């Protein structure tokens, strides 16, 4: 296997007048988990559909598992697994029937397809679902079967397009566990998500996509550093003092994030200890009582908002993700 599992150079795709991808570049090393993070309409799904040969790019050079997605789509299809936004299963059939059918379509042969179906049912904890058709599965079970189906041939590269959207926290945890166990087996995973927590937990590297191009790419830690390093968080006892306290922080007023519901202020700081001591003293002098004062790294939420410059929508997403 090559060192690079996915190479995207200058990918372009237009739908009518709308540019879904606008010169997107991305390189993913073999055996890693690449997160692709972006708001709705950023081009995440378009990227996955192009990488998985479902969609032809208008321009650009795109290679997956060592083959060009346009010129050698079949070679690519032999080496990839795809988990789309909606569970792509035959809802009328049961789990085993689905796995056997897709195994046959991967040309495993009837016997081998059956054996593989058993293995995957076992591995994803679906052995006791019996003859129940997929339409009666819970969201998490359906997603696990979907994931199992995309692993029938032990793909070199696996695409997960918003794998946990619409799942309850338990279903989400189930999928996360499954994805993590995959990576141990050497599979390269490209995962799109709107959930920053998901990217933070699963991805080795995260590419932030906005307007059809990558606006930042790095490890979650590198990205967090992008927003200017550490922040100091102050939670007050009395929300009415938020304004006064904000004025005391050693940064321009515009850099202070105020969360009235949680009675919290947050501001970027450069010198960690000096800033902390300064804030404590200033609050004390002003007679403002703090419930909690803490230094912390920025969250990916803040990185994301910083990079996409889309505060209102971003807050909305964070609430959804919470």
């Amino acid at each position, binding site marked *: 296997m090559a060192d690079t599992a996915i190479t995207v150079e200058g990918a372009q795709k237009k739908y009518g007048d709308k540019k879904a991808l606008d010169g997107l570049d991305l390189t993913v090393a073999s055996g890693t988990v690449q997160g692709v993070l972006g708001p709705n309409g950023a081009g995440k799904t378009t990227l996955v559909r192009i990488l998985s040969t479902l969609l032809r790019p208008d321009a650009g050079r795109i290679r997956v598992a060592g083959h060009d997605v346009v010129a050698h789509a079949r070679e690519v299809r032999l080496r990839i697994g795809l988990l789309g936004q909606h569970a*792509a*299963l035959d809802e*009328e059939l049961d789990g085993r029937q689905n796995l056997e059918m897709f195994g046959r379509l991967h040309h495993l042969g009837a016997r081998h397809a059956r054996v593989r179906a058993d293995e995957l049912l076992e591995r994803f904890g679906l052995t006791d679902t019996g003859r129940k*058709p997929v339409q009666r599965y819970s969201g998490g079970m359906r997603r696990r079967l979907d994931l199992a189906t995309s692993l029938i041939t032990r793909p070199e590269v696996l695409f997960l397009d918003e794998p946990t959207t619409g799942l309850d926290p338990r279903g989400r945890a189930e999928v996360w566990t499954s994805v993590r166990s995959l990576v141990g087996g050497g599979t390269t995973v490209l995962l799109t998500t709107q959930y920053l927590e998901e990217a933070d937990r699963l991805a080795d590297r995260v590419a932030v996509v906005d307007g059809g191009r990558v606006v930042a790419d790095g490890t979650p830690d590198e990205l967090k550093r992008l927003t200017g390093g550490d922040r100091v968080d102050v939670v007050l006892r009395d929300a009415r003092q938020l304004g006064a306290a904000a004025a005391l922080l050693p940064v321009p007023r515009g850099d202070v994030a105020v969360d009235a519901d949680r009675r919290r202020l947050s501001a970027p700081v450069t010198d960690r200890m000096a800033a902390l001591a300064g804030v404590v003293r200033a609050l004390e002098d002003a007679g403002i009582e703090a419930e909690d004062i803490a230094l912390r790294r920025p969250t990916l939420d803040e990185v994301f908002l910083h990079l996409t410059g889309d505060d209102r929508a971003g807050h909305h997403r964070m609430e959804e993700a919470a």
Partner: protein
Amino acid sequence: MTSYALVDSWTMTRRELAHWARQPVQVLVALVFPVMMLLMFGYLLGGGRGVEGDYLSYLVPGMLALTMAFGLEGTMIAVTRDLDKGVIDRFRSLPMASGAVLVGRASADMLQSALNLAVMLGAGYALGWRAHGGPGALLAAVGLLLLLRFAMLWVGIHLAMVAGKPEMVQAVQILVWPVGFLSNAFATPQSMPAWLGAVVEWNPLSATATAVRDLCGDAGATSASWAADHAALLAVAWPLALTAVFFPLAARRFARLDT
């Protein structure tokens, strides 16, 4: 890779058969519904307008042709259901033969229609209908009926992909009925206003129905129109023309679902 075309097509056909096994009631309803229509029009609504002689020998071929034409709905429902669930996307991302999905659909629908015909012919026979033209002519009639169904298959696949959502299919479904009834399945064109009769004469369904009547020796339909006189020719030409138009459209649409 063409070597897998047969294997993959069989896998996709098996999938459809597995659906039948899952939904035996639906399959049964699909088989019984045309028989109910036959009984309804044969007995409840009485004789057809303008039909001389035995109405049953006029009605049975008409109902056979109508059943084939209405197969369009089943095709559309199945295709849109797959599209809606995203399962087609997964098929398309597999290294399988690209035509296999459509071949599976086609095999299953043709098989279902052949069963439909068998049940209908059995019902007609039980009611006293007889094919007077002999076994060869009856086989030719069945061939023409399946040819009409084959054309409807591609029309259905294409319309379903254009319509996209199952809700849109309902709109198309409603339109299938007037097109089905604007035929000579139940009544002769001579019994209708001249302009309507002309439309009805040229309905592909009418051509098949008339050709089947001729093959089965029904004397009830007497007409001197060109379309009626050349029913056998039209019963071949219409489905071939429809297939020639809609098969490439459907195949192309399927290959480029993304755009």
